């Protein structure tokens, strides 16, 4: 997909909770095509302690409003600067980057889709903390293609649960919190819905320990599972080779890459691939988890 560097205009910055903001961006021209699971490299201006762009996943694309949403946890100087933006400010973004989630039906710009997995159950979208961000646009896309996604969202406390109302527009939402302040108490992998229903595909984004636990669960149950990695990154374009993940198998050809789920590994050789280019979404079968 063609990449762009654009000066986007901030339409609003909404503080969801103490540590999270939702930034709505727009552009004078129609925004380029973007796929769920892809990300944006945001330039941070005027901070003495940050230098590189910040990779932020695409939370949502509202075509009618010509808006791109970024859900940001304020964890350092770069993200705090982003949270301090005001309506009308400019945010320089490079986009869209990376591969995106596997979709059962293709969107404009996405290559070979998966064959629709009839009768194997619907998609379960599992998110943890701010890792729920890339699941909203995915959920919308799934719903529009006729699927019925289920969301399972986990957080430390109810204050860390983000955008529940938005998720409810596109599917059923189940919740866990570690302190039991909302939904079931515990981790996402303990939620009762996993015992009660069979899912055909799990797509997961959150803290690495959570994604590893979900990957383990999926493997035990024989369910296809994709996760979105967030390795430390510089260029975002596959040039600097900093964000690598060691994966199994030969690098997949682009057409096979979109059909990731059904690719039998061609080799057990381990190779370093760029998360920014071959990812951020990976089938867990390729990972050494």
């Amino acid at each position, binding site marked *: 997909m063609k990449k762009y560097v654009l000066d986007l205009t901030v339409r609003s910055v909404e503080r969801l909770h103490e540590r999270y903001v939702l930034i709505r961006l727009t552009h004078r021209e129609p925004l380029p095509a973007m796929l769920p699971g892809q990300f944006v490299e945001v330039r941070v201006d005027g901070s003495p302690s940050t*230098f590189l762009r910040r990779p932020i996943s695409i939370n949502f694309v509202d075509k009618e409003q010509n808006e791109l949403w970024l859900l940001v946890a304020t964890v350092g100087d770069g993200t705090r600067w982003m949270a301090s933006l005001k309506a009308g400010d400019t945010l320089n973004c490079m986009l869209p980057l990376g591969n995106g989630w596997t979709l059962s039906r293709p969107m404009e710009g996405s290559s070979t889709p998966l064959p629709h997995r009839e009768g194997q159950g619907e998609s379960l979208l599992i998110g943890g903390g701010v890792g729920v961000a890339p699941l909203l646009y995915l959920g919308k896309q799934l719903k529009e293609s006729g699927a019925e996604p289920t969301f399972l969202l986990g957080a430390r406390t109810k204050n860390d649960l983000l955008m529940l109302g938005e998720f409810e527009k596109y599917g059923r939402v189940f919740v866990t919190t570690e302190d039991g302040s909302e939904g079931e108490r515990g981790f996402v992998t303990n939620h009762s819905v996993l015992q009660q229903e069979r899912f055909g595909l799990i797509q997961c984004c959150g803290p690495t320990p959570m994604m590893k636990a979900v990957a383990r669960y999926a493997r035990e149950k024989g369910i296809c599972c994709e996760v979105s990695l967030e390795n430390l990154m510089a260029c975002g374009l596959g040039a600097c080779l900093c964000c690598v993940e060691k994966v199994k198998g030969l690098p997949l050809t682009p057409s096979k890459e979109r059909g990731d789920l059904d690719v039998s590994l061609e080799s057990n050789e381990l190779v370093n691939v760029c998360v920014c280019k071959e990812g951020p979404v990976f089938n867990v079968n390729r990972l050494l988890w």
Partner: protein
Amino acid sequence: MAKLEVNIGALKLKNPVMTASGTFGYGLEFQDLVPLEEIGGIIVKGTTLKPREGNDYPRMAETAMGMLNCVGLQNKGVDYFCEHIYPQIKDIDTNMIVNVSGSSPDDYAECAARVDALDGIPAIELNISCPNVKDGGMAFGVTCAGAESVVKAVRERYHKTLIVKLSPNVTNIAEIARAVEAAGADSVSLINTLMGMAIDIEKRRKKLSIGTGGLSGPCVKPVAVRMVYQVAKAVKIPVVGLGGIMTAEDAIEFMMAGATAIEIGTANFIDPTVTIKVRDGINEWLDRHGCQSVKDIIGVIE
């Protein structure tokens, strides 16, 4: 509109702005964002005789006005380059230059010889200064004898423009530059990254997988300008300057210090179109100061 053409030995550049190895992939990664043919030269990722997987993750740590990396020359080897990548880049209308690395003089020479056979590659940049690999790289670049041995071996098998990239991790860089010149190099480029380290104080752990890495970005620029100045005074061959260039003003500073051309590295990560902006900025500066050619400013600092 001032003239921007410069020559590095037999290599003709339409403008003095090139991209530094390891920061611009094979150019293709940036083709949506930058008109590649408008760049003076593209120096592609470090290439070795045999494939290399590079170092383990994490390979990068951000620092104040810069970054550390310890990628460790990950590449698929020169044969893969010749077979799969060269066909995709040979028709890009700029100088496509291959950065060559190795672990012995014979390795370097064999790799260079295979690139010599490619019509569309008019020059190589010999990397005797990678701080992130144990076997070779910087080991050759920190002594005159080591540098000379590699350059001599390559010179015998490589017949086009030979640029040698120098390490700043030495006591006297001018001495190394003179040894490289005597061994037959057509040009020297400097500086490669400065060896550095960063520590995560919460985890009480080194931030990079191999502990140390190469520092780049604007934080290294004054060191680089000083070294370019010293080397330009010490050798007769053209000097290519790099190290923290973010703007046209930075590039002009290097050229005044003695660089005939410049490379832009880390800045590509922040602004993928920076090369074009620097070229345009140099042109505007020259016009504003009544210079007919970019050559008017090269080495003007006494």
